[in-house]
């Protein structure tokens, strides 16, 4: 299972990353080398094995529905690259 140049471009877009042609080629070959190594996992029989998502036992963590204050408007905006009228400002979307 190797990544083709087309796939690499698709993954880059999904990842919201852009690369120059040479850079993407280099990235692709390092990924292919790593993914080839991952194939070692096929030697392990995992039929009927449940996946482990978290190492500690999972349980639902709920709290009482008590209102409490979060981060202030001012603090939420303090690192904004651009803001206007108390809102985050971004380039044109539509």
């Amino acid at each position, binding site marked *: 299972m190797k990544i083709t140049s087309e796939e690499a471009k698709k993954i880059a877009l999904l990842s919201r990353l852009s690369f120059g042609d040479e850079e993407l080629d280099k990235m692709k070959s390092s990924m292919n080398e790593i993914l080839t190594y991952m194939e070692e996992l096929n030697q392990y029989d995992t039929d009927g*094995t449940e996946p482990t*998502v978290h190492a500690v036992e999972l349980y639902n963590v709920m709290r009482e529905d008590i209102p409490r204050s979060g981060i202030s408007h001012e603090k939420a905006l303090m690192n904004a690259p651009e803001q206007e009228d108390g809102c985050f400002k971004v380039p044109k979307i539509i």
Partner: protein
Amino acid sequence: MESMTIHELHEKLIKKEISAVHLTQKLIEHRNSREENIHAFLSFSDEEALAAASRTDARLADGEKISPLEGIPGAIKDNICIEGQKCTAASKMLENWTAPYNASVIDKLKALNFISLGKTNLDEFAMGSTTENSAFGPTHNPWDTRCVPGGSSGGSAAAVCAGEAVWALGSDTGGSIRQPAAFCGLTGLKPTYGRVSRYGLLAFSSSLDQIGTLTKDVTDAACVLNAIAGYDAKDSTSIPDEPEDYTKALAGGVKGMKIGVPREFFGRGIREETKKAIERALHFYEQEGAEIVDVSVPHVNSGVAVYYIIAPAEASSNLARYDGVSYGFRASGSKDIIDMYLQSRSQGFGEEVKRRIMLGTYVLSAGYYEAYYMKALKVRTLLKNDFDKVFKICDVMITPTSSGTAFPFHSFSDPLSLYMEDICTVPVNLTGVPAVSIPVGFSDGKPLGMQIIGPNLCESRILKTAYAFEQAHPEYRKTAPKGEVEL
């Protein structure tokens, strides 16, 4: 030689042999003289440090009791948030980001009036094991500045090793506390997953990340763990059990303990000098009345592959938040919103972070999810089953921390061969258990590390095991060149 551990300095403070302000000033002077060659820190917080120190001195003058960590300057890895201070994760993406809140560990430390001398260097977003991936330049190993300090908590390790801080916090996702501790001759503790709150730790791989300690000895590790362990409602993976006083059981000894030696950890690539040093340690434990038992972790060789699927998968999701919209780096001159995302992320992230985002996106994408991600989660279960079985027949396991001593910069030409170096440390994060690395000897003048692994929530047990060895081998706790601080 000055005794520069937390517990020894605490004695000096309460006996009024030194003041906290004097100690802090001396450490700042020492740090300033060493940073040119070490580069352990990304930012300093001297003013806050001196203010906290004078509060401690005032409290001492009033005859108040101080906690063991109070008045003793430390350092914090720069992926842990301190309100009002920059938190960069050693990334251009967060170069100008100021944390708007405290990590829960910082809230706990602030309640103890702790002193931080600054934020320490790391591999960008904690992805790496050399600190070479920092966007702001690498950290150097105080034992040999031509070598890496390990990583990703390389700045925290180098700071303590070089005498620039008495203790430090790090984070450990696949060995990022234990391996730099081994390379710098320190005690590095990764607590059980969930024992220390992750709230305010910039997320890399949420099912593996854990905050822990880098200290000069085992007693100090227990002391810092006491300050940061415990349930936190802000972290839904936090363990509700009350933490212990981890300093209490240190001197308990190892008589009657069963120490498991998983032979699989001593295979592929582990250097002879590492194996010999650990053999000597096992011999010591046997003489102290412990029983050494051969155990097996058959799936240990799957660890690196499993880790480098799960960690990038989680990272690709966690790092999606850095989009240039509400905080972090935003590229200028973008023509539309997609272009802004693409340019901001491409210019803001370094190569290794991009590789892991790409890998993670790939293994989670339609068509490959089952083959890679789901397969890795299932093999993770097999590894966890191995650990569960082993801890039914032994109390702790002993393994190398890394294959050998710290290596020179640029030693690895391709990412995979460097990933392979994590073979002894990643299984611990995948299974969630606690582990500590302590110095076990020297090779060519550089320290070697031994890893002691215990079952979940058995921090006291691994620390007790570590303490027994440490107390009998003071020669392995030598101070690195120029690491002495004049008080």
